[in-house]
């Protein structure tokens, strides 16, 4: 079981000799295999929350537990998909995807088998020998998603993964992520500033406030999605036209507006 627990977490940074509170006291649990999206204005500390779960930064107060264990360092049980992809430019697609498996000590045969499955799943067959710069932004982010999924992590952390993509690519990637997440559910913490994206993808949406960053509201999307059977529509624009979706979106927009 891989849940994420924020237990009295606070994070402050010192800036110009003064401490400022980036994330105020936060208590929150992402359930096992739940998809939670955090939305909020820029600078509200949503990325800091994700980075603390990843182990890139330590909370100033409190602890973060993943699957019961306290997070102290980054690790393959919490795979991260970055906004700027962060693929290794000197490695091929295959070598990027197998990097983590190699660190796990798997045999080459096992690595290639698992990588091949994931590369097929994200639709990149035939590009195994390509280098990242030869791929479009959307394809690069697919490699990054494959690189994270291939580790079979309990937790997936996605930091505005589609923020650097153009609008069309973004939509395609959102639809694919929904398929992937429904077929192969993980505990996901997803950071975005796009409200539609959060409502479309997540089971619950957290709205954060700014200075200090706090989990201000938590909105249950899953209940509505099941009641209104959103998943019968495979295209994002059809879901977005549903009155239940529109209603939820404007509700979250209102909450966000109050932050300014």
């Amino acid at each position, binding site marked *: 079981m891989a849940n994420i627990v924020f237990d009295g977490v606070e994070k402050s940074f010192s800036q110009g000799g003064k401490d400022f509170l980036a994330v105020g006291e936060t208590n929150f649990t992402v359930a096992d295999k739940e998809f939670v999206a955090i939305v909020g204005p820029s600078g509200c500390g949503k990325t800091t929350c994700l980075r603390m779960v990843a182990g*890139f930064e330590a909370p100033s107060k409190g602890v973060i537990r993943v699957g019961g264990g306290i997070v102290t360092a*980054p*690790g393959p049980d919490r795979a991260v998909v970055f906004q700027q992809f962060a693929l*290794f430019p000197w490695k091929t697609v295959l070598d990027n995807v197998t*990097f983590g498996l190699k660190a796990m000590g798997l045999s080459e045969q096992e690595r290639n088998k698992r990588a091949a499955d994931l590369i097929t799943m994200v639709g990149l067959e035939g590009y195994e020998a390509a280098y990242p710069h030869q791929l479009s932004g959307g394809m690069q982010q697919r490699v990054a998603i494959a690189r994270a999924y291939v580790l079979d992590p309990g937790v997936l952390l996605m930091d505005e993964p589609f923020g650097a993509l153009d609008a069309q690519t973004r939509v395609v990637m959102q639809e694919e992520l929904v398929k992937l997440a429904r077929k192969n559910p993980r505990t996901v913490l997803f950071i975005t500033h796009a409200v539609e994206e959060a409502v479309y993808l997540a089971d619950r949406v957290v709205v954060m406030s700014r200075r200090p960053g706090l989990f201000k509201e938590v909105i249950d999307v899953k209940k509505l999605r099941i009641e209104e059977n959103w998943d019968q529509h495979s295209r994002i624009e059809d879901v977005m036209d549903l009155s239940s979706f529109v209603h939820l979106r404007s509700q979250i927009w209102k909450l966000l507006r109050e932050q300014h």
Partner: protein
Amino acid sequence: MMHRDSLNSQQVMMYSVLGIALFLSVWYGAVALEVTPKQFLPSPHEVLIKLSSLLTQPFSGFTLLAHIASSFQRFLYGFLLAICIGIPLGLLMALSKNTDRLITPFFESIRFVAPIAWVPFAALWFGTGIGGPVLVIFMGAFPPVLINTYRGAIHVDKKFIEAAQMLGAGRLRLMVEVLFPAAIPSIVAGLRISAGLGWQSLIGAELIVASSGVGYMMVKGQASIQTDIVMSGMIAIGIIGLAIDIGLRMIEKLVSKYREN
């Protein structure tokens, strides 16, 4: 002031030829006016004749090419040693603050000691064996390799390091598979500086602690007041140094071309 580079390659060539001609005429002038006693300053054509005869006739036991070969061998040993120690140490210092703290003060205090200053100890420790010159070359070639590796590795985009860490990479894997490839352009630039300094230091070392090599040949030439031999040695040093630099520059170009694609 900006250079207006409006000359075509022919005109540029003309200037180069003019420069060399000017240099040679000053040289001939100095010989003709006997600025120094005649045997202390050979004329250019005498040097050329000597240089070509040294290719076939041994002096101090070896032909010029054999002297060059033995110099180059020492250079290679010292240079490779600098690479083998400098690159891993530079990466380690970039990765580990404590290694950085441990090495930096010591390194900073010895890097301003000219490589030649190690010659007395090189002589005492190794005599005229290969160890002496290799030590001196190493002292010249090591700092640029270390510094450039360190700088290249410390400026690696943090996102690559974080990506490797979350994928479960340990320190060794981080060094070998992330820091090293990311720092290669900086490392190669360092190798050029390092090779130049190493090659220069080698000749200095050979003047004292060797029984073959271009530097040794020059000392012997000076001892028997055969200045044309000394001058031939200088020309050989220049040509080989240039060849080493051109070789490394080609590697540098190859690396950046590979990077762009």
